[in-house]
């Protein structure tokens, strides 16, 4: 099941499962912490995702064989450790549900706008991966009644702070970028800022709840227009 695969001359892919499950992001996040603590100086980057970890190693200090040899005896023990009951920090993120696609999403899902907001904000999500753009966190699982395919024509510019959904996932766009997801609302907080330490408050395995706020609170929190 678990396996190592060289990924070019300077990276090693650790595959933990063929399919993601609800507990896996937290498991992978804990594993990433362990690996960073144990082998940090040998690594240049460590990228967790739904089913595995990519270790970008420093070829001047190690290689894929040595890394696999050092990790192999430790992994079964780390993977057998019980997960903390709750696990992952909880972030409450305010959202002004006034996205450009809110009415359209309600229509496509045969729900009222209020029901869309209720379904979206009553779920506790988990960060499954961070990628696509700096600070872009893929959150799952979105309620099945809100699951929609990508928009047939992606927008060339989705505004920064947009809360969006697609299939069983939701995310906030940290920067303006092209995007094909459905826009439900706006987040007043910056979710990626190089001047902050760390630049992104979320890590893989963290939990997220969205809290519906009105326009006034959105502006009071510094929301842009």
């Amino acid at each position: 099941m678990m396996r190592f695969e060289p990924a070019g001359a300077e990276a090693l892919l650790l595959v933990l499962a063929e399919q993601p499950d609800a507990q896996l992001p937290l498991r992978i996040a804990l594993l990433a912490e362990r690996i960073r603590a144990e082998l940090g100086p040998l690594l240049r980057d460590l990228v967790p995702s739904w089913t595995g970890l990519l270790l970008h190693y420093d070829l001047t200090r190690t290689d894929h064989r040595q890394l696999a040899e050092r990790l192999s005896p430790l992994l079964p023990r780390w993977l057998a450790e019980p997960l903390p009951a709750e696990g992952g920090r909880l972030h409450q993120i305010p959202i002004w549900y006034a996205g450009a696609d809110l009415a359209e999403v309600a229509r496509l899902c045969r729900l009222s706008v209020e029901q869309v907001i209720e379904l979206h904000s009553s779920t506790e999500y988990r960060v499954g991966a961070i990628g696509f753009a700096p600070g872009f966190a893929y959150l799952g699982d979105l309620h099945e009644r809100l699951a929609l395919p990508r928009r047939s024509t992606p927008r060339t510019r989705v505004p920064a702070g947009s809360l969006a959904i697609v299939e069983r996932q939701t995310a906030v766009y940290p920067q303006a970028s092209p995007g094909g997801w459905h826009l439900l609302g706006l987040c007043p907080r910056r979710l990626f800022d190089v001047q902050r330490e760390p630049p992104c408050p979320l890590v893989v395995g963290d939990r997220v709840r969205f809290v519906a706020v009105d326009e006034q609170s959105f502006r009071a929190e510094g929301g842009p227009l």
Partner: protein
Amino acid sequence: MSGLRVLKPGPQSLLQDGGRFGWQHLGVSPAGPLDLHAAAWANHLLDNPWGTPLLEVALGYLELESELDTWLALTGAQVAATLDGAPLPPWSRFPLRAGQRLKLGFARSGQRAYLAVAGGFRAPSLLGSVSTQLREGLGGGDGLGRPLRAGDLLPCRPVNLARAASVPWPYQPDYRAPAQLRVIGGGAAAGFAADQLQAFFERSWQLSPQSDRMGARLLGEPLVAPPQQWSQGVGRGAIQVPPDGRPIILQADHQTMGGYPILGWLHPLDQARLAQCPAHHELRFSPVDLGEAQAELRGFYRFFGR
């Protein structure tokens, strides 16, 4: 602080250092020079350490005026460089005095020239690097991820070196030669049908004009790719095959994760060769053993002090 004044920025001139590593888990691309080989030589000629901030000048047409006495080194694409009108030798270091003008012409061979200054260009470090990432708006002279603009000042220190120096000619690549690029196997390669893998290595490909610092796109008869996987971390050199069957080779500004099946990885030193190919240049691929590629890369890093 004084430095070099940009009179003409050229189509895309970017400040780059060794790359922005350590942040890929937050989705931050490493960036860095597209051609590590030419960039390493430019710094080496000036006794600068590996990854000292320098300029990557796409296609040439850069014009600078110096406010101080220092030394520069120019490598990579042949851009008919002149100093106050006098031609400069390629792959060499040379002195530049206050008031002198450096002018790069159009790239006649290769796509990217590297211009280093003794001691390096000064710029604010963001997440540990000054490398310009256009898509993410990070790095460069003002930290906002912009290419050079006319009027910009490139801060640097006055330096005096003893004598001129050049890269020995066997190390100066001929970018006009056909590009034979080596590929390390692995990834989803086992998922590709044997005849598709064979076709990749037997066919001749062309570099698409749609290529950029994020990915080099290949033109040619499409391959049949296996189904997509769950997204995993991806690295530079990964040869992705999207559903349309036209491979994309990830370059310096690559995204941090991807779900397309990966056919293999371009040898890191051949990524440098690819970076110098113009659109529609012919590309051919051949397999290389992982251990052999690593040994060669280690030797390269050792020589340049990384």
